[in-house]
Protein backbone atom coordinates (compact mmCIF):
# COMPACT_ATOMS: atom_id res chain seq x y z
CA UNK A 1 0.00 0.00 0.00
CA UNK A 2 1.22 3.50 -0.76
CA UNK A 3 -0.28 6.55 0.89
CA UNK A 4 -0.98 9.73 -1.06
CA UNK A 5 1.66 11.41 1.09
CA UNK A 6 4.31 8.88 0.04
CA UNK A 7 3.23 9.02 -3.59
CA UNK A 8 3.42 12.80 -3.65
CA UNK A 9 6.91 12.66 -2.15
CA UNK A 10 7.95 10.09 -4.74
CA UNK A 11 6.60 12.22 -7.61
CA UNK A 12 8.34 15.34 -6.31
CA UNK A 13 11.65 13.48 -6.16
CA UNK A 14 11.18 11.66 -9.48
CA UNK A 15 10.37 14.84 -11.38
CA UNK A 16 12.58 17.23 -9.38
CA UNK A 17 9.61 19.45 -8.63
CA UNK A 18 11.57 22.11 -6.84
CA UNK A 19 9.52 24.27 -4.48
CA UNK A 20 6.64 21.78 -4.25
CA UNK A 21 5.90 19.71 -1.17
CA UNK A 22 3.50 16.88 -0.37
CA UNK A 23 1.51 19.36 1.68
CA UNK A 24 1.00 21.77 -1.21
CA UNK A 25 -0.23 19.07 -3.60
CA UNK A 26 -3.88 18.05 -3.58
CA UNK A 27 -5.03 14.47 -4.12
CA UNK A 28 -7.14 15.60 -7.06
CA UNK A 29 -4.35 17.55 -8.75
CA UNK A 30 -3.89 16.56 -12.38
CA UNK A 31 -0.48 15.12 -13.22
CA UNK A 32 -0.39 16.76 -16.63
CA UNK A 33 -1.54 20.07 -18.11
CA UNK A 34 -2.79 22.54 -15.57
CA UNK A 35 -1.98 20.34 -12.55
CA UNK A 36 1.62 19.42 -11.82
CA UNK A 37 2.44 20.43 -15.39
CA UNK A 38 4.17 17.21 -16.39
CA UNK A 39 4.79 16.51 -20.09
CA UNK A 40 5.15 13.58 -22.48
CA UNK A 41 8.72 12.80 -21.41
CA UNK A 42 7.52 12.66 -17.82
CA UNK A 43 4.76 10.25 -18.86
CA UNK A 44 7.40 7.79 -20.08
CA UNK A 45 9.45 8.41 -16.94
CA UNK A 46 6.39 7.66 -14.82
CA UNK A 47 5.66 4.50 -16.79
CA UNK A 48 9.20 3.25 -16.12
CA UNK A 49 8.91 4.22 -12.43
CA UNK A 50 5.70 2.19 -12.06
CA UNK A 51 7.31 -0.81 -13.74
CA UNK A 52 10.47 -0.61 -11.61
CA UNK A 53 8.80 0.08 -8.28
CA UNK A 54 5.48 -1.75 -8.54
CA UNK A 55 5.76 -4.12 -11.49
CA UNK A 56 2.97 -2.27 -13.25
CA UNK A 57 2.98 -2.46 -17.05
CA UNK A 58 0.27 -0.82 -19.10
CA UNK A 59 -1.01 -2.70 -22.10
CA UNK A 60 -3.03 0.10 -23.65
CA UNK A 61 -2.77 3.87 -23.75
CA UNK A 62 -6.35 4.61 -22.72
CA UNK A 63 -5.80 2.76 -19.46
CA UNK A 64 -2.67 4.77 -18.66
CA UNK A 65 -4.48 8.00 -19.58
CA UNK A 66 -7.17 7.19 -17.04
CA UNK A 67 -4.67 6.19 -14.35
CA UNK A 68 -2.49 9.26 -14.94
CA UNK A 69 -5.46 11.62 -14.56
CA UNK A 70 -4.62 12.64 -11.00
CA UNK A 71 -2.54 11.77 -7.97
CA UNK A 72 -5.57 10.04 -6.46
CA UNK A 73 -6.30 7.85 -9.51
CA UNK A 74 -2.64 6.89 -9.67
CA UNK A 75 -2.52 5.96 -5.99
CA UNK A 76 -5.67 3.85 -6.28
CA UNK A 77 -4.28 2.01 -9.30
CA UNK A 78 -0.94 1.29 -7.62
CA UNK A 79 -2.66 -0.07 -4.54
CA UNK A 80 -4.95 -2.26 -6.65
CA UNK A 81 -2.45 -3.55 -9.24
CA UNK A 82 1.02 -2.99 -7.77
CA UNK A 83 3.20 -5.86 -6.58
Amino acid at each position, binding site marked *: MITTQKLKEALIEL*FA*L*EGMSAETLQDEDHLFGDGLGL*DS*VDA*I*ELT*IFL*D*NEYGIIFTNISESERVFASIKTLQEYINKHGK
Partner: protein
Amino acid sequence: MKMNFKILKAAVVDAQEKCENLDEKRIVPKMMLRRRLTRSARIMVYLADACDFSEGSVVYGSAYGEMQATADIVGAIASKNPISPTAFQNSVYNTAPSYFSLLHKNKSEIITISSGDETSRNVLQSAALQAIVNEAPVLAVCSEAINIANIEEVNSCTDFLESGIAMTLEMTTKAATLEVLKREHKGLAPSLWAMMDVVVACDAYDDAIISIEL
Protein backbone atom coordinates in the same frame (compact mmCIF):
# COMPACT_ATOMS: atom_id res chain seq x y z
CA MET B 1 43.78 34.01 -43.77
CA LYS B 2 43.50 36.05 -40.58
CA MET B 3 40.65 38.35 -39.64
CA ASN B 4 40.10 40.54 -36.64
CA PHE B 5 37.36 40.23 -34.05
CA LYS B 6 36.33 42.37 -31.14
CA ILE B 7 35.75 40.53 -27.88
CA LEU B 8 32.65 42.18 -26.47
CA LYS B 9 32.27 40.25 -23.23
CA ALA B 10 33.85 37.24 -21.61
CA ALA B 11 33.11 35.12 -18.56
CA VAL B 12 34.70 32.16 -16.82
CA VAL B 13 33.44 29.84 -14.13
CA ASP B 14 35.08 26.86 -12.45
CA ALA B 15 34.87 24.77 -9.33
CA GLN B 16 36.75 21.81 -7.95
CA GLU B 17 33.48 19.94 -7.52
CA LYS B 18 30.34 21.96 -8.28
CA CYS B 19 29.78 25.53 -9.40
CA GLU B 20 27.61 27.25 -6.85
CA ASN B 21 25.56 30.40 -7.33
CA LEU B 22 24.81 29.93 -11.00
CA ASP B 23 21.76 32.12 -10.39
CA GLU B 24 19.43 29.57 -11.99
CA LYS B 25 16.23 30.88 -10.40
CA ARG B 26 16.69 34.33 -11.90
CA ILE B 27 18.02 33.19 -15.25
CA VAL B 28 15.56 30.29 -15.63
CA PRO B 29 12.47 31.40 -13.71
CA LYS B 30 10.25 28.57 -14.96
CA MET B 31 10.77 25.63 -12.60
CA MET B 32 9.44 23.13 -15.13
CA LEU B 33 12.27 24.04 -17.48
CA ARG B 34 14.87 24.55 -14.76
CA ARG B 35 14.34 21.08 -13.28
CA ARG B 36 15.57 19.43 -16.47
CA LEU B 37 18.76 21.43 -16.90
CA THR B 38 21.95 19.43 -16.83
CA ARG B 39 25.02 20.79 -15.08
CA SER B 40 26.50 21.80 -18.43
CA ALA B 41 23.27 23.57 -19.33
CA ARG B 42 23.25 25.47 -16.03
CA ILE B 43 26.85 26.54 -16.60
CA MET B 44 26.14 27.49 -20.21
CA VAL B 45 23.08 29.66 -19.51
CA TYR B 46 24.94 31.31 -16.65
CA LEU B 47 27.87 32.18 -18.89
CA ALA B 48 25.58 33.44 -21.65
CA ASP B 49 23.83 35.65 -19.12
CA ALA B 50 27.18 36.94 -17.87
CA CYS B 51 27.98 37.88 -21.47
CA ASP B 52 24.57 39.62 -21.86
CA PHE B 53 23.75 37.25 -24.72
CA SER B 54 20.26 35.88 -25.26
CA GLU B 55 19.71 36.00 -29.02
CA GLY B 56 21.93 35.09 -31.94
CA SER B 57 24.19 32.34 -33.16
CA VAL B 58 25.83 30.08 -30.63
CA VAL B 59 28.88 27.89 -31.05
CA TYR B 60 29.11 25.46 -28.15
CA GLY B 61 31.87 23.01 -27.34
CA SER B 62 32.57 20.25 -24.91
CA ALA B 63 35.21 17.55 -25.06
CA TYR B 64 33.36 15.18 -22.75
CA GLY B 65 29.72 16.07 -23.31
CA GLU B 66 26.91 15.22 -20.93
CA MET B 67 28.75 12.91 -18.57
CA GLN B 68 26.03 12.43 -15.94
CA ALA B 69 23.29 11.59 -18.42
CA THR B 70 25.65 9.23 -20.24
CA ALA B 71 26.63 7.57 -16.96
CA ASP B 72 22.94 7.19 -16.07
CA ILE B 73 22.27 5.44 -19.37
CA VAL B 74 25.28 3.14 -19.06
CA GLY B 75 24.30 2.35 -15.47
CA ALA B 76 20.75 1.48 -16.53
CA ILE B 77 22.03 -0.80 -19.28
CA ALA B 78 24.50 -2.50 -16.94
CA SER B 79 21.80 -3.17 -14.36
CA LYS B 80 19.30 -4.20 -17.05
CA ASN B 81 16.92 -1.38 -16.13
CA PRO B 82 14.94 0.71 -18.62
CA ILE B 83 16.69 3.85 -19.80
CA SER B 84 15.29 7.10 -18.45
CA PRO B 85 13.87 9.22 -21.30
CA THR B 86 15.13 12.31 -19.49
CA ALA B 87 18.67 10.90 -19.41
CA PHE B 88 18.31 9.94 -23.07
CA GLN B 89 17.24 13.40 -24.22
CA ASN B 90 19.89 15.03 -22.02
CA SER B 91 22.74 12.82 -23.23
CA VAL B 92 23.42 14.53 -26.55
CA TYR B 93 26.27 16.99 -26.99
CA ASN B 94 24.02 19.92 -27.86
CA THR B 95 21.85 19.63 -24.73
CA ALA B 96 23.22 22.80 -23.12
CA PRO B 97 22.78 25.20 -26.07
CA SER B 98 19.39 23.62 -26.84
CA TYR B 99 18.11 24.49 -23.38
CA PHE B 100 19.56 27.95 -23.88
CA SER B 101 17.55 28.31 -27.08
CA LEU B 102 14.38 27.04 -25.40
CA LEU B 103 14.89 29.45 -22.53
CA HIS B 104 15.33 32.51 -24.73
CA LYS B 105 13.21 31.33 -27.67
CA ASN B 106 16.35 31.82 -29.72
CA LYS B 107 15.85 30.57 -33.28
CA SER B 108 19.35 31.29 -34.52
CA GLU B 109 21.62 28.41 -35.47
CA ILE B 110 23.61 26.38 -32.98
CA ILE B 111 26.86 24.65 -33.84
CA THR B 112 28.18 22.07 -31.41
CA ILE B 113 31.79 20.94 -31.51
CA SER B 114 33.63 18.22 -29.66
CA SER B 115 37.25 17.75 -30.64
CA GLY B 116 39.16 16.76 -27.54
CA ASP B 117 41.80 19.18 -26.34
CA GLU B 118 41.27 21.31 -29.46
CA THR B 119 37.61 21.93 -28.65
CA SER B 120 37.73 25.58 -27.61
CA ARG B 121 40.20 26.45 -30.39
CA ASN B 122 37.76 25.07 -32.94
CA VAL B 123 34.80 26.71 -31.20
CA LEU B 124 36.55 30.05 -31.41
CA GLN B 125 37.33 29.57 -35.08
CA SER B 126 33.78 28.48 -35.91
CA ALA B 127 32.35 31.40 -33.94
CA ALA B 128 34.57 33.74 -35.91
CA LEU B 129 33.25 32.32 -39.17
CA GLN B 130 29.68 32.65 -37.92
CA ALA B 131 30.34 36.27 -36.97
CA ILE B 132 31.47 36.96 -40.53
CA VAL B 133 28.53 35.15 -42.12
CA ASN B 134 25.90 36.71 -39.85
CA GLU B 135 27.54 40.13 -39.47
CA ALA B 136 26.39 40.01 -35.86
CA PRO B 137 27.82 39.08 -32.47
CA VAL B 138 28.19 35.36 -31.81
CA LEU B 139 28.43 33.53 -28.51
CA ALA B 140 31.34 31.11 -28.25
CA VAL B 141 31.01 28.91 -25.18
CA CYS B 142 32.65 25.77 -23.84
CA SER B 143 31.92 23.82 -20.71
CA GLU B 144 32.98 20.62 -19.02
CA ALA B 145 30.95 18.99 -16.24
CA ILE B 146 32.53 15.69 -15.32
CA ASN B 147 31.54 15.44 -11.68
CA ILE B 148 30.15 11.91 -11.73
CA ALA B 149 30.61 9.04 -9.29
CA ASN B 150 34.13 7.56 -9.24
CA ILE B 151 35.49 10.13 -11.71
CA GLU B 152 38.65 10.38 -9.60
CA GLU B 153 39.58 6.89 -10.81
CA VAL B 154 40.00 8.10 -14.38
CA ASN B 155 40.37 11.88 -14.25
CA SER B 156 43.91 13.05 -14.85
CA CYS B 157 43.18 16.11 -16.97
CA THR B 158 41.65 18.69 -14.66
CA ASP B 159 41.42 19.92 -11.08
CA PHE B 160 38.03 21.42 -11.84
CA LEU B 161 35.20 18.94 -12.26
CA GLU B 162 33.01 21.78 -13.48
CA SER B 163 34.25 24.61 -15.65
CA GLY B 164 33.14 26.83 -18.45
CA ILE B 165 34.23 29.78 -20.52
CA ALA B 166 32.32 32.06 -22.86
CA MET B 167 32.79 35.14 -24.95
CA THR B 168 30.85 37.18 -27.46
CA LEU B 169 32.74 38.33 -30.50
CA GLU B 170 32.03 40.33 -33.62
CA MET B 171 33.96 41.03 -36.77
CA THR B 172 35.84 44.32 -37.01
CA THR B 173 38.06 46.04 -39.55
CA LYS B 174 40.11 47.66 -36.79
CA ALA B 175 43.63 46.51 -36.07
CA ALA B 176 44.27 43.90 -33.41
CA THR B 177 45.03 45.40 -30.02
CA LEU B 178 46.48 42.35 -28.39
CA GLU B 179 48.37 39.20 -29.05
CA VAL B 180 46.99 35.89 -27.88
CA LEU B 181 49.73 33.64 -26.55
CA LYS B 182 49.40 29.90 -26.23
CA ARG B 183 49.67 29.02 -22.57
CA GLU B 184 49.30 26.03 -20.33
CA HIS B 185 46.46 26.67 -17.89
CA LYS B 186 47.32 24.11 -15.25
CA GLY B 187 44.34 22.55 -13.54
CA LEU B 188 41.90 23.61 -16.26
CA ALA B 189 40.68 21.04 -18.77
CA PRO B 190 42.85 21.41 -21.90
CA SER B 191 39.71 21.59 -24.01
CA LEU B 192 39.20 25.12 -22.62
CA TRP B 193 42.77 26.36 -22.93
CA ALA B 194 42.54 28.18 -26.27
CA MET B 195 39.61 30.31 -25.18
CA MET B 196 41.26 30.89 -21.81
CA ASP B 197 44.28 32.22 -23.72
CA VAL B 198 41.98 34.89 -25.17
CA VAL B 199 40.43 35.74 -21.81
CA VAL B 200 43.85 36.13 -20.22
CA ALA B 201 44.98 38.35 -23.09
CA CYS B 202 41.80 40.46 -22.87
CA ASP B 203 42.13 41.07 -19.15
CA ALA B 204 44.39 44.06 -19.58
CA TYR B 205 42.50 45.68 -22.46
CA ASP B 206 39.27 47.67 -22.62
CA ASP B 207 39.11 47.45 -26.39
CA ALA B 208 40.13 43.87 -27.00
CA ILE B 209 40.57 42.99 -30.65
CA ILE B 210 42.21 39.74 -31.62
CA SER B 211 43.27 38.12 -34.88
CA ILE B 212 41.92 34.68 -35.59
CA GLU B 213 43.31 32.38 -38.26
CA LEU B 214 40.38 31.12 -40.35
